[in-house]
């Protein structure tokens, strides 16, 4: 799995990872490869595969943000026996499936 952490000049740390960090936790919920699903930001309208999100994985849950405007696209929280997936920042998710 390729990670492309960007450097946050403020904290001197790698602030976020790319959307491939969501592959594991999301594939627990979705049966298709989630990172290639296409979304569209409800804030700025830009389109991207989930793999392009900026993912803050050090928070209490996963936070995926729009690579263009930083709006929150998704939040994913995993407890020992449940998962919560909030996708309110994307207009829809498009999955490419076999015919």
């Amino acid at each position: 799995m390729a990670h492309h952490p960007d450097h946050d000049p403020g904290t001197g740390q790698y602030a976020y990872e790319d959307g491939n960090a969501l592959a594991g936790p999301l594939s627990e919920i979705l049966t298709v490869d989630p990172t290639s699903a296409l979304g569209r930001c409800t804030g700025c309208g830009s389109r991207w595969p989930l793999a392009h999100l900026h993912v803050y994985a050090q928070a209490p849950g996963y936070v995926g943000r729009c690579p263009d405007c930083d709006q929150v696209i998704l939040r994913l929280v995993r407890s020992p026996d449940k998962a919560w997936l909030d996708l309110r920042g994307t207009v829809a998710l498009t999955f490419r499936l076999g015919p």
Partner: protein
Amino acid sequence: MRHVVNNGKECTFGERRHGMAIVSRGFRGRPGDTHHKLPPGQYETTDFPVLSAGPTPRVDRDGWELTVRTETGARHSWNWAQLMALPSQTPTVDLHCVTKWSKFATEWQGVSLDVLLEDVETAAEFALVHSYGGYTTNLPLEDLLDGQAWIAYRHDGEDLAPEHGGPARLLVPHLYLWKSAKWVRGIQLLLEDEPGFWESAGYHDYGDPWREQRYQGD
């Protein structure tokens, strides 16, 4: 509202139970101090891990403002100079993060919410705290009062660094640390509870570490 202010008194609230009186420990704790107690499921760390749900906002003190808005729309605000002019306290408190680390005897300086809310007239029972950067968190208003919460602007004897929520953050150490909103900019007083950023995505509405209220349903 009238609230008692224990100005300058050094207390820790890590072991405080809901509704009980504040008990001063009478000594200054140190990192690694074995007198402290861990809530269930927590481990002690001496680091201060940075957990962030987004980019770190860079907030200039010159443009900083804290606003309290009541359920009637009444607005009370303080700029940086006005906050600095208020009496401050130097609480030493234990922090408990829902990701299971606890840090004992952290030292802060800040203004008690009792001071900030003293002249605010409200019938609200709930608060929704807003941060620069868009983060929100909710808690009962009574958990902000009676010496339980501060707008903190110094930590460990230094100005609060941006990665820890500077220039100012909410400090409400008797609840899990996600309630202590970094980069605080406003408190909305509400008649009805409104879930915040993590509370609407699976985390517990209240978040008491001693009852291990991590997730909804705990």
